[in-house]
């Protein structure tokens, strides 16, 4: 298993590969000290690696940012995507990101298993001890990524 810096690099690579591949979006880290405000408007997804060890990846977008991203994905330039479209796209982003991440952190060529993604509105409940990082997409805030490795085999 990687150390915290190794996990950060793997999460960032997974996010970058997914967002560039699906949405032609560029990911950059936020300034150090950036702290998201949980009382703001957020949309989140969680994907879990179930096997060979347990880990959870949380993907939390500001509502403004995910709305813009999904509008681009769906080619909806004259109308705002519906809430169910936003959450479906967010779940698919999490699913794809989780797969890339698992290939980076699961040792060797071992098989792994992913959960179906959960999604929701507002700020998600995350366990204590989760590692987290903040990013901008196309220079707009804010994407919060958090990873909890719950049980290592």
């Amino acid at each position: 298993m990687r150390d915290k810096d190794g996990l950060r690099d793997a999460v960032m690579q997974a996010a970058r590969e997914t967002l560039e591949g699906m949405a032609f979006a560029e990911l950059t880290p936020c300034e150090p000290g950036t702290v998201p405000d949980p009382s703001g408007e957020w949309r989140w997804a969680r994907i879990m690696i179930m096997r060979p060890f347990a880990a959870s990846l949380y993907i939390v977008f500001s509502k403004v940012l995910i709305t813009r991203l999904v509008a681009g994905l769906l080619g909806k330039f004259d109308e705002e995507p519906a809430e169910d479209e936003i959450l479906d796209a967010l779940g698919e982003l999490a699913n794809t990101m989780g797969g890339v991440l698992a290939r980076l952190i699961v040792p060797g060529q071992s098989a792994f298993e992913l959960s179906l993604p959960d999604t929701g509105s507002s700020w998600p409940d995350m366990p204590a001890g989760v590692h987290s990082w903040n990013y901008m997409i196309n220079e707009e805030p804010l994407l919060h990524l958090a990873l909890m490795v719950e049980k290592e085999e």
Partner: protein
Amino acid sequence: MKRIIIADDSVTARMFTRRCLEISGLTDGVELVDAANGVEALAALRDAPADLLVTDLNMPEMDGEQLLARVIASPKLNRVPVMVITSADSEARSEKLLAMGAKVVLRKPISPPVVAEALEKIIGAHKEEWG
């Protein structure tokens, strides 16, 4: 008319796959049929002849691996080539799916050139069916 079934529980993923197929230029005049899981895909395959099944693995009700096993086991359906597009793909899993009978296994995120290349490979191997 040719018919392709696209099975994925995410509307976004189905739309993305559909867009990649359309950009390839190889599906002009082909009917693209959406299915939200393996059960719906199997029903669509039984409704009318299909020329290709494109499926995700991680789906509720019936997942892609179960769907592939059902297609391969069916004398009526086992000529339909299967393209798997999934995020839950490791070397070991890919080898297993190919051994089960999948023609191609692609990793998400997919891109139009990757899908086009896979489709060309399948069409090349099924020239009689695709004309």
